[in-house]
């Protein structure tokens, strides 16, 4: 008997249900076995999630969220304590930052005078010429490359 039977013989079905002890029948049903027979994955596959999500009003959902209460529950200090700031700073390429950002302009405006730039240039040029001379001396004396002692260990190590 299907829905067609329900439509044509409603009274007969009511009578039949009146005779059957429904509670006793239900008590004998093994619900676990019934659930085991249900293929949940197949059921989920049949659900169109996009259609469900399209019906959800995200804005309304977000409006109902108490963000302040949520943030208050987060212990920011504990998070910061777990961050190794030195490691983060070490990973920052300061020179690249200066070369690529407005920080360079700020440094130039705040610290650089003509005298400073002249000094920097004179010293850099001097060091460049020193290295040039050192390379030639090493070549003439046939010293192997990389044998220069650098500087006092205390200063170079520092």
């Amino acid at each position, binding site marked *: 008997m299907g829905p067609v039977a329900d439509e044509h013989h409603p009274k007969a079905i009511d009578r039949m249900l009146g005779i059957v002890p429904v509670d006793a029948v239900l008590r004998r049903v093994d619900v676990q076995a019934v659930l085991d027979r249900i293929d949940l994955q197949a059921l989920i596959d049949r659900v169109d999630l996009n259609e469900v999500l399209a019906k959800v009003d995200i804005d309304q959902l977000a409006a109902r969220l108490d963000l302040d209460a949520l943030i208050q529950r987060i212990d920011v200090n504990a998070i910061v304590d777990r961050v190794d700031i030195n490691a983060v700073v070490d990973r920052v390429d300061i020179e690249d930052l200066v070369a690529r950002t407005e920080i360079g302009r700020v440094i130039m405006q705040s610290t650089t005078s003509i005298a400073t730039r002249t000094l920097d240039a004179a010293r850099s040029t001097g060091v460049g010429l020193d290295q040039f001379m050192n390379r030639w001396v090493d070549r003439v004396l046939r010293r192997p490359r990389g044998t220069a002692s650098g500087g*006092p260990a*205390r200063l170079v190590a520092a």
Partner: protein
Amino acid sequence: MMTRTKTPEPEPRLTGHYAGPVTRLVSYVIDAFLVSALFSIVTAGLFWLIELVTGENYDASDAGGLLGGIVFLVWIFLYFWGPMAAWGRTLGMAIMGLELVRRDGERVGAGRVAIRVITFPISFLLLGLGFIGILLGREHRALHDVFAGTTIVYAWDARAARLRFLAAHRTAR
């Protein structure tokens, strides 16, 4: 068309390394000029003051060649010894970013500086051979450095200079 002169990038990793011959020569030339120029200015000022007070005309030659020479030698000693004992550098060395340190890198004391300044002429007297170590030696030490147990290193803030260099090129773009 304007051309930009090519300046080498400052090299922070060289701070604390032995200073080379060119930088040291330039710093010495600056000091040689300053020691004479300041002596002339100071003596001229002193004679002007004496003339102002006594009302009589004096000339440097009035002091006598020997006395003048001794005063000049004392002046040279004080010019080099004073700043190096106090700050580890003369004016010329400060301009070129150099510092006098002990051979082990420790700060130099007034005694060692005195030995270095007093033995400095010996490097000249041996036909300049006392300076050959600056050119050829691994530690770039002159004879007077050997006597005093000192050496000269780069001691300027090349890191800050490098950042200024990069910043200058960024703003020049």
